[in-house]
């Protein structure tokens, strides 16, 4: 691969790197440029996503037919947890961090992140953490078979792989808190002239909110896991979760869900922000109700901290407590509903252009609504008790995380891909990717609502025969869904070489500052000219000169 054609931040900055690809690679690995770190985050996330997806394929192959098929139940028990761990901690969260690393400094008109070295260190914690979690498969006793939740006493009882898993998760938490500290410092302290907090793009807003969530919730998971590890390592001395020594197994669940419920918002809020960028661009309209959109994200985050016990309705907590958590949970639907309707209102009366990012955004709205509504169903305590730990919950979480987060990730990647590489992806294959993804997300996961209503518990190695046909549909759908993702990978990689070159404002209607930078941007984003934010007023017609956000002369 020749590096001489690369432009902007992609171009090698030393002579050695120009000549040797290895040096070029070394330059990437040691870079402090947020854009390069962001792309490394994304590459790492995609890699782990492929592994996590492969694990889910194993699950679906096993469940395709009733009866034990290709693996032992001991091995199967490890799969749901490892799949979830990889997808949540190593795929969705890092990819959003990556996109944000690339986009946020550009959008606030900053040359880089506030702590570039911390940024690099935060990234390089991830691969060892991923390696630790995966290497649990290689140690005696195998990977932990306690799900991604790791409830004690099962996780206390588990073999050595659990220690690797715990250490890996603590490292991931450290990495994401480092990124959060960095984002907050950057956004609060590095904005360009005229960019007040309520002039920022909604994507940047979503990162602010997400970073606060990470900052306040991830440490609690860390402390829970440290207590768990202490009890595992020194069983004689520590009895936090052991009733025989005066401990309480439910305590872990409280601490765990105090993190893991906000984690759901950590995984979806950047997506919300991203959609709020894509839809105005392809509708040629400003976002509807900008301040409400920002405040509703803050409301979701605040409420997200006080609903954790809705994951624990069956553990025997008091009726009154469950009632309170139910009411708070239902309240979250209000700001979420506001967002959905605001997106619809943004498009209303607009001029919609259906490029791939827009398609993914529309697919996201269509399917995330299903996930949100099944969340309303699950919020109701009596119904939730019946559906808890059944496939209904599996369907719900996948409608939120696959039809939600993953769709927005694709939307964002297609949206900013030309900015990242300076070349355009192949639109046709992008659309094929979209249609296959959308259709087979529904084929795979919709039927699981039915399974859950019928009473099929999740994490089951085998099931009653009447569930077989639905599982077969789900499995076939998941195979195609997984395969379809490789279309996008090939498309995006090939297009670096073969795609058409693009201008600064790739879509013609981008109004944020990243569209004022070159494609791809220079090493320090704006080549020394610190930009000045001037909000684009679309109501004066679409005049190219006027509509372009302009760096300061």
């Amino acid at each position: 691969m020749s590096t001489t054609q690369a432009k902007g931040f992609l171009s090698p900055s030393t002579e050695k790197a120009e000549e040797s690809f290895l040096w070029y690679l070394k330059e990437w690995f040691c870079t402090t440029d947020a854009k390069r770190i962001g792309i490394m985050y994304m590459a790492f996330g995609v890699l782990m996503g492929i592994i996590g997806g492969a694990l889910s394929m194993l699950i679906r192959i096993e469940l395709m037919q009733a009866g034990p098929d290709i693996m032992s139940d001991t091995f199967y028990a490890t799969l749901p947890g490892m799949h979830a761990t990889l997808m949540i901690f190593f795929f969705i969260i890092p990819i959003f961090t990556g996109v944000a690393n690339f986009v946020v400094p550009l959008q606030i008109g900053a040359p880089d992140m506030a702590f570039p070295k911390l940024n690099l260190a935060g990234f390089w914690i991830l691969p060892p953490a991923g390696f630790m979690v995966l290497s649990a498969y290689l140690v005696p006793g195998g990977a932990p078979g306690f799900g991604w939740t790791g409830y004690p006493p099962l996780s206390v009882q588990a073999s050595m792989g659990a220690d690797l898993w715990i250490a890996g998760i603590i490292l991931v938490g450290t990495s994401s808190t480092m990124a959060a500290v960095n984002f907050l410092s950057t956004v609060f302290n590095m904005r360009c002239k005229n960019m007040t907090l309520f002039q920022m793009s909604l994507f940047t807003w979503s990162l602010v909110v997400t970073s606060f969530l990470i900052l306040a919730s991830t440490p609690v998971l860390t402390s829970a896991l440290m207590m768990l590890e202490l009890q595992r390592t020194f069983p004689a001395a520590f009895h936090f979760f052991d009733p025989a020594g005066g401990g309480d197994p439910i305590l872990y669940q409280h601490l765990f869900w105090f993190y893991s419920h906000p984690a759901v918002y950590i995984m979806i809020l950047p997506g919300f922000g991203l959609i709020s960028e894509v839809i105005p661009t392809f509708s040629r309209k400003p976002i509807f109700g900008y301040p409400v959109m920002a405040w509703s994200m803050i409301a979701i985050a605040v409420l997200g901290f006080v609903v954790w016990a809705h994951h624990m309705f069956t553990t025997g907590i008091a009726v009154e407590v469950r009632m309170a958590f139910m009411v708070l949970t239902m309240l979250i639907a209000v700001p979420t509903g506001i967002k959905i309707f605001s997106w619809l209102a943004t498009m209303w009366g607009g001029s919609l252009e259906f490029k791939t990012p827009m398609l993914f955004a529309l697919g996201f709205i269509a399917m995330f609504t299903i996930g949100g509504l099944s969340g309303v169903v699950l919020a109701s305590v009596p119904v939730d008790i019946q559906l808890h730990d059944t496939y209904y919950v599996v369907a719900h979480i996948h409608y939120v995380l696959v039809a939600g987060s993953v769709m927005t990730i694709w939307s964002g990647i297609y949206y900013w891909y030309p900015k990242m590489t300076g070349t355009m992806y192949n639109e046709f294959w992008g659309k094929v990717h979209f249609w296959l993804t959308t259709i087979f997300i529904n084929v795979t996961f919709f039927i699981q609502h039915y399974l859950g209503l019928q009473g099929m518990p999740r994490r089951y190695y085998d099931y009653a025969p009447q569930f077989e046909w639905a599982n077969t549909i789900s499995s076939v759908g998941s195979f195609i869904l997984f395969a379809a993702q490789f279309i996008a990978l090939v498309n995006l990689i090939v297009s670096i070489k073969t795609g058409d070159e693009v201008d600064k404002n790739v879509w013609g209607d981008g109004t944020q500052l990243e569209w004022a930078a070159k494609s791809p941007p220079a090493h320090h984003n704006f080549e020394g000219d610190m930009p000045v934010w001037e909000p684009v007023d679309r109501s004066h017609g679409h005049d190219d000169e006027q509509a372009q956000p302009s760096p300061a002369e």
Partner: protein
Amino acid sequence: MADVEPGPESLGVSNGKIGMWTFLVMDAMTFAGFLAGYARLRWSPESGWPNPIETFGTLGIQVTAANTFILICSSVSMVHALAEAMNDNLERARTWMLVTIVGGLIFLGVQGFEWTHLILDKWPYLMEVNWVADPSGALQAAMQSIEQHGGYDNLNFAATFFNLTGFHGAHVAVGVMYNFVMYLGLRNGKITGENAELIEIAGLYWHFVDLIWILVFTFVYLI
């Protein structure tokens, strides 16, 4: 890190300070997690939690109180170090920094002494069980050992004690190292009145550790 300057629309402080504040929010939440666990274990019905004053003894509490005083004093000396550094009195700043470091070390030493005493005299079951050689039988062996020593009401009293004081002690140890780096900076002339903010940031951390200790001391020893 200091090479990235704040933008035009900043909060008016350096990036480093914002970074430290946000880091402290995160660290406070870690302690909050531990303290929440502690509260849940202690104030659950029928927990049989022992009275800490009886367990540690009046003398034990007094020693720890004195230790607390030393840690607070080291915070004061940190303030002095910063003030002197800002006035470019680098010699005196160095001395105050050294006092801060020594205060932290004394705190750690007293805590180490306390741990040794508690493990050897108060909760011997912790050491009598060889959990390395026989992890699976360790719990039963611990139970037997506890019975031999007259039984304890709730084993998590010791567990949360070591958990909270240990995690805090690790913070003090990190703080001592951090301060030592600052001391070296002052000595080598890398830190002067112009970038005395570095000491201020280190001070933020040190005061935070101090503050947390007051919480831990109150919860674990006094209430």
